[in-house]
């Protein structure tokens, strides 16, 4: 049992802000008064002792869990991948006022408020290089994301309400992650894929912002969702300058929530946060002289690539592990090298001597070695070394290093088809988008293509969203297989198109393709016209061009999963169990930059000034001609000249005329004069008042 008190600084609690709480007077002492607790009687003997002796309410955590892991992987192009994986889980709660120990309250509230069933938000800068960094493994399928922001969410609400919930969700996320995700609320930016993206029933929404900047301000709130923030544990490695110096970084947040009752184990909210960074280890920092030899891989360590060490685990994490992943290409290459060097025959991978073999050296002895089991074909399999951070502390930080002894050249396993997309045509009026799929080496040896009706076919799904100002003509879809034009019906199995509506919705194209197995290449082209935007719709940097979001190419018949031999440890490690999940191979194409006709933005101003001048000249002169009366003008002029003299001088002149006895000429026609006129009465009153004042002051 516990009692919690909170100090409120809201205006209602502080008597309209007059009773201020100053935190400089901390620590505070609080007393409870008039406080009556009704509690159930508990069996005193066992439970209470357990709680007090362990002293860890946190570990109990109301069923909440948190674990942190980091996976490091060398890439063939002398770069290193660092993949952080944090996972928290909270059990489902029916009550609203739940207390959160480890699980971020903001996320729990978000799930509850917007009825989110599943959601993924990613912030990415840079492009995942499928050729060099691989495209077949679960790591790239799950974590290679298009540049900018990508958000999709599945809602547990009726279809008519999904758009409203989506809009509110984008606003909340934009506040939570310091990004302009709220631009996704406009119906021109999001779409509802049905065929290719994920099995959904109309309650999925997908939107991307290709130009969204990603920087520290996005990472900081993301880190604040972790129970240890970036103060302890693996997240302490996240030195902002080192991360953003990388070639690719993608921070991702994935939410899954399930109602209670469906499944006892998985019910609740699961939060998976990953940060994937590709960094270039600087070889001069290690102090080795290998830099002269260009083909040797640079040696690196955690401290050399991040500039920091791991100061032990985050104490409230259930598990805290670091993995080093050598992919199957590399392992195969190492095996080949070993076979050549006959003297190292004794050194097999299964033995413990692998971490100090002839090719490289790992500075820390791994606690566990996992080897992938590939039942399908007898090719080489990848190896993962596991290191537990639990025994390290501030005084003895964890630092993993990899030193290469001999040059190794290998390549990562790629997706069956390498997808790229480009623009065709020139000019500001029309153009064409082309998606080309080139077969890669890896697909040739793979027997996983489906054989249907005696025909060997490869299924490819394409999901493409184009903004409304790119007006795509879907009837112009042309298909080329092995550079030969083919009829659409031969290749396209299913197609779903929702044409764009101007300023209302984007164009969406979803295609399910069945390509013949042996085909080397396939290409699709679509023609489009470029639309005109209203002057207010152009962004401030319109001359930079407009982005077409990445197309998503997926290969549902291929599964990006790794098989490990059954192990108790594997199920406790979120990152490895994630690798073992079946997921289709995915890849994103490049973002296209389209120049649109941009107006001269000073033009409206020029037009307004010119038209105003013309109008003024025209109407002014016309009015002058029509309305002008020459005699009247002269009369007015004359009268004005007569009136110009002030009334004092007029009076004087009249006085002098009177004195001389001559009648003065009257410039204006005088009014008929009567003795008892209004003017006279006024004059009398005036004189009387003057007299009274004079009398009063001087009398």
């Amino acid at each position, binding site marked *: 049992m516990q009692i919690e008190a909170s100090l409120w600084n809201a205006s209602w609690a502080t008597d*309209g802000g007059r009773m201020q709480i100053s935190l400089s007077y901390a620590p505070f002492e609080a007393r409870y008064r008039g406080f009556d607790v009704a509690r159930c009687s508990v069996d005193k003997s066992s439970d209470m002792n357990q709680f007090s002796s362990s002293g860890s309410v946190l570990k109990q955590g109301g069923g909440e869990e948190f674990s942190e892991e980091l996976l490091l992987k060398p890439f063939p192009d002398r770069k290193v991948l660092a993949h952080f994986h944090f996972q928290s889980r909270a059990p489902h709660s029916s009550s609203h006022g739940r207390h959160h120990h480890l699980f971020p309250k903001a996320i729990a509230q978000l799930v509850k408020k917007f009825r989110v069933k599943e959601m993924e938000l990613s912030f990415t800068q840079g492009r995942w290089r499928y050729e060099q960094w691989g495209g077949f493994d679960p790591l790239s399928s799950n974590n290679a994301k298009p540049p900018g922001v990508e958000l999709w969410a599945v809602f547990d609400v009726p279809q008519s309400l999904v758009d409203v919930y989506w809009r509110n969700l984008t606003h909340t996320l934009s506040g939570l992650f310091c990004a302009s995700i709220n631009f996704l609320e406009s119906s021109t930016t999001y779409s509802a894929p049905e065929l290719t993206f994920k099995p959904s029933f109309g309650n999925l929404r997908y939107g991307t912002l290709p130009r969204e900047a990603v920087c520290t301000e996005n990472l900081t709130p993301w880190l604040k969702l972790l129970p240890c923030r970036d103060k302890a544990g693996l997240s302490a490695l996240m030195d902002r*300058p080192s991360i953003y110096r990388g070639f690719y970084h993608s921070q991702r947040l994935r939410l899954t929530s399930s109602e209670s009752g469906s499944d006892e184990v998985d019910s609740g909210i699961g939060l998976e946060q990953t940060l994937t960074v590709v960094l270039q280890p600087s070889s001069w920092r290690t102090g080795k002289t290998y830099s002269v030899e260009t083909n040797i891989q640079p040696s690196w360590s955690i401290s050399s690539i991040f500039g920091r060490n791991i100061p032990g685990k985050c104490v409230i994490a259930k598990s805290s592990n670091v993995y080093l992943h050598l992919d199957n290409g590399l392992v195969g290459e190492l095996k080949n090298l070993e076979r050549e060097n006959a003297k190292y025959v004794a050194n097999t991978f299964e033995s413990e001597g692998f971490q100090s073999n002839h090719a490289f050296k790992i500075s820390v002895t791994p606690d566990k070695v996992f080897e992938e089991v590939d039942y399908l074909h007898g090719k080489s399999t990848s190896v993962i070394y596991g290191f537990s951070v639990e025994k390290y502390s501030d005084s003895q930080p964890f630092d993993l290093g990899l030193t290469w002894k001999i040059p190794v050249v290998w390549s990562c396993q790629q997706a069956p088809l390498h997808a790229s997309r480009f623009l065709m045509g020139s000019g500001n009026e029309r153009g064409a988008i082309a998606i080309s799929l080139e077969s890669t080496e890896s697909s040739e040896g793979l027997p996983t293509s489906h054989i249907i009706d005696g025909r060997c076919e490869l299924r490819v799904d394409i999901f493409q969203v184009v903004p409304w100002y790119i007006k795509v003509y879907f009837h112009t879809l042309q298909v080329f297989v092995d550079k030969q034009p083919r009829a659409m019906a031969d290749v396209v199995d299913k197609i779903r198109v929702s044409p764009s509506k101007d300023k209302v919705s984007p164009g969406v194209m979803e295609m399910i393709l069945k390509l013949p197995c042996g085909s080397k290449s396939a290409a699709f082209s679509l023609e489009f016209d470029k639309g005109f935007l209203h002057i207010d719709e152009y962004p401030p940097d319109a001359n930079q061009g407009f982005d077409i979001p990445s197309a998503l190419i997926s290969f549902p018949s291929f599964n990006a999963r790794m098989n490990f031999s059954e192990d108790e440890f594997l199920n406790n490690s979120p990152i490895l169990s994630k690798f073992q999940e079946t997921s289709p191979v995915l890849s994103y194409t490049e973002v296209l930059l389209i120049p649109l006709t941009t107006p001269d933005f000073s033009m409206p101003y020029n037009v307004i000034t010119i038209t105003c001048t013309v109008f003024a000249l025209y109407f002014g002169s016309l009015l002058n001609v029509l309305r002008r009366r020459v005699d009247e003008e002269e009369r007015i002029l004359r009268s004005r000249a007569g009136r110009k003299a002030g009334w004092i001088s007029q009076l004087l002149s009249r006085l002098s005329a009177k004195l001389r006895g001559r009648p003065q000429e009257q410039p204006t026609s005088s009014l008929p004069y009567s003795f008892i006129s209004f003017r006279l009465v006024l004059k009398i009153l005036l*004189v009387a008042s003057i007299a009274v004042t004079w009398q*009063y002051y001087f009398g």
Partner: protein
Amino acid sequence: MMVRYKMHNSFGFKSLAAMLLLLILSSSTSYRASAETTMHTNNWAVLVCTSRFWFNYRHMANTLSLYRTVKRLGIPDERIILMLADDMACNARNKYPAQVFNNENHKLNLYGDNVEVDYRGYEVTVENFLRVLTGRHEAAVPRSKRLLSDEGSHILLYMTGHGGDEFLKFQDSEELQSHDLADAVKQMKEKHRFKELLIMVDTCQAATLFSQLHSLGVLAIGSSMKGENSYSHHLDSDVGVSVVDRFTFYTLAFFEKLNMYDNASLSSLFTSYNPTLLMSTAYYRTDLYQRKLEEVPVTNFFGSVMETIHTDSAYRTTFSRKTSETIMPLQQSVEHDESRQLINSNVQDQTSDTKIEDKQCPFTRRWNAFQDKLEKIERIDSLVNYGLIIMFPLLLISTWLSR
């Protein structure tokens, strides 16, 4: 209130008119009184960088420097609305990723590890800026993007970018005009969104942006007068562009010496600007601000230092308002004068009568004296006689003249 009521009756107005006047009067005076007696509750800062593109790096560095300063002096992140029109820290042209410097010695990374940008990129528009100030948001906008100030708030509004005569450019595509700013501030005042507001602007011809301001409690500092430019301070050859503006540089130089507990006054900040170093004349408008600048510490706006009230009992809300008590007599006299003026002239301009007690309309004063003397006269018959006698010659002259 009762005193005032009696006063009205003694003047012998009709009851309806008196009630009407009382209503107008009490609403206006009680509002003013509330604005003056409301305690300072919290501090907010709205920091805006309005310029896009890499060569405007210095504007973002200016804003982030101020962000760092106010955070250091105690305003928490949730009470800072930071608007940055472009991303400089992770810009592809930035040689130092995730870092922004305001000095070529690169000692201080302004971006740090804990920066919260509320509006960025295309979101920094005049519309959003005015929405933040006036609090007119869509319902879905999260709290972190709103200025949730109250009538006891002190707000610092800092803006930097490219400006001109009575305007400030937003992202090279829109302008904020001085009228827009003044209207927004007036609306804020009427919505009780601030007690005191300091507007600090670092642009060319910054002083012109304040020309339309009329709301009480507003203090404004600009980097340059009309017709003057605001210049950058120095170029960082590593970054490749100028990294800070002169006005902001010297403002920061002033603040770097301070901590939260210093009592440097606003006037010492204002006098610290040296026109020869600034290459422009810093302008400050104080006529709308009632307090003496010598007595107001800079932490009034740039920090979050508040007066604390100690109460003996924990839950009783009877607090001794000593500070407000001392102000009361003066305030009553103000009300008194004001009410009289209202009765006599029946016209009141809400914004113009800031200092009623010493510059009352001369005509009104004369009329009052005249009325007083009129009542004291005893020989009223002789007065009338004299008047009639004088009237005749005057009448004669005038008829003779006008014939």
